[in-house]
């Protein structure tokens, strides 16, 4: 892949909380219009990685560049302005705000305000349920609706790339399916995406390529075309000796 085609490039990233290092030299990249998955056991750094890219936490070492420009020293707000949007895990959003208010507010940066109308139309078409419940407060939404709103909020930020952290966490299979269709639809418009998931079949159905994150490092890169079978992935996940 050529340099120019890389939308997000992370090199040798170290980050963590207090004295504890969670990420120990992660390198990965996402190309234009590419959907990339991150999977691996809980507590091995997937969420920390997204938090570090969006500057919720500050990296200790390593570099991150987005669309060819380094993100060092930029605040979360600047990163949103550039269009790198992080949809965090189990986002409770703004409990006392209504759905429409929240979506309108999410187009906060100047660039996002310019695209507000078009993005709002798209979000409401993508998730008709949000349109039906436009006056409902965030606190009263179900898990699935909240997840839809979270992704909708991300889209209202006028993304040039989306990072989704476990978009189907705790949802029923039916809702998962609904969200998978929506996410695939966003991808089909050429949106580069980095998707964190635990559900391996879910993520396989959505992405072009995957990284397996283990102990704060990229343990393996898997192309969709490669002949890694399901059992092999299960082994990575649960360890070699897990029963089939």
């Amino acid at each position, binding site marked *: 892949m050529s340099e120019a085609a890389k939308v997000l490039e992370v090199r040798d990233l170290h980050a963590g909380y207090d004295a504890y290092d969670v990420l120990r030299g992660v390198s990965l990249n996402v190309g234009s219009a590419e959907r990339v998955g991150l999977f691996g056991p809980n507590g091995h750094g997937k969420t920390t990685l997204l938090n570090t890219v*969006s500057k*919720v936490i500050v990296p200790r070492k390593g570099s991150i560049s987005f669309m060819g420009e380094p993100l060092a020293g930029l*605040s*979360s*707000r600047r990163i*949103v*302005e550039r269009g790198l*949007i*992080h*949809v*965090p895990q189990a*986002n*409770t*959003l*703004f*409990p*006392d*705000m209504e759905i429409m*208010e929240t979506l*309108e*507010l*999410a187009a*906060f*940066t100047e660039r*996002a305000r310019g695209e507000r109308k078009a993005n709002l139309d798209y979000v409401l078409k993508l998730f008709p349920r949000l349109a039906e419940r436009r006056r409902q407060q965030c606190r009263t939404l179900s898990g699935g609706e909240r997840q839809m709103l979270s992704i909708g*909020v991300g889209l*209202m*930020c006028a993304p040039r790339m989306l990072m989704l952290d476990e978009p189907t966490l705790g949802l029923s299979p039916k809702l998962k399916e609904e969200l998978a269709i929506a996410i695939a639809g966003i991808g089909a418009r050429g949106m580069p995406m980095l998707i964190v998931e635990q559900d391996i079949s879910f993520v396989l159905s959505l992405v072009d390529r995957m990284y397996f994150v283990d102990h704060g490092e990229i343990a393996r890169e898997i192309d969709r075309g490669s002949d890694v079978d399901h059992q092999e992935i299960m082994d990575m996940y649960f360890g070699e000796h897990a029963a089939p």
Partner: protein
Amino acid sequence: MTADTISAVFVSGIVLASVYALMASGLSLVWTTLGIFNFAHGALMTLAAYVAWTVSDAAGLGLWLGAGIAVAIAAAVGAGILMERLIVRPFYDHRDILLITVMTTLAAMIFIEKGSQLVWGARLKQLRPIVPGQVNFLGTTISAQETLIIVLAPVILGLLWLFLRNSRIGRGIRAVGQNPNAARLIGIDVSRLFIITFALSAALAGLTGVLLGSVRMVTPAFGSEPLVKALIIVIFGGLGSLGGTILAAYLIGLLEAALIFFIGIYWAPSMIFILLIVVLLVRPQGLLGKVVR
């Protein structure tokens, strides 16, 4: 009890309530957004009243009253921003921010109170009223200035409500209060909105100070005295609910006026507190507060 007394009690209650509502909504705004109580809120009122007096009174610069009010509100906003920067901001990431800022804002209150005593002396001062004369309101004669307060309070609070509900910055302020992390991830500059919130609250304090400064005597304790009640009102109305704060302000203002009439000025405050305690036993979350799980 005649209709005249009822009207007199009601009118004095409404005046009191309007002042409480203006004060408490400034406190409530800072609480809802930053999660702290600003004990120096009343001191900002005092500062504004003194500044307005200095600029506009004949014994001071003797300028037009409007100039005094404008300078006073600007001074309150300036002091508010300074307070946020110096005594609140350093503790944002501290998990005991609430307790620490109780101390720092109390210190600021004492600082402003004693400082104004040094600068302006202990002699009572009074601002000229914005509107002179008397008005007959519901059969009771009150000063035109008090009428102005009665009319202006709901207008200002209504504007504040519209701002928070419909404007981009106002919605941003609410969002930051409800979930600062989610706000950051949609590109909101959280610390900038904290400053704007503090400035807005200080402007409300300043405005309350200049309105009240011609009705009551301005002393160094001019704003700190009603502050305790404003604090109680914020809790009584339900933490985090501006509507609850305003409702509580009007209820307590009216109640206080009635109690003063029936049991006298000495026992009224303690009776109010007892009633509040009883209400909070039944509804710990306050009138319109939400139950936090």
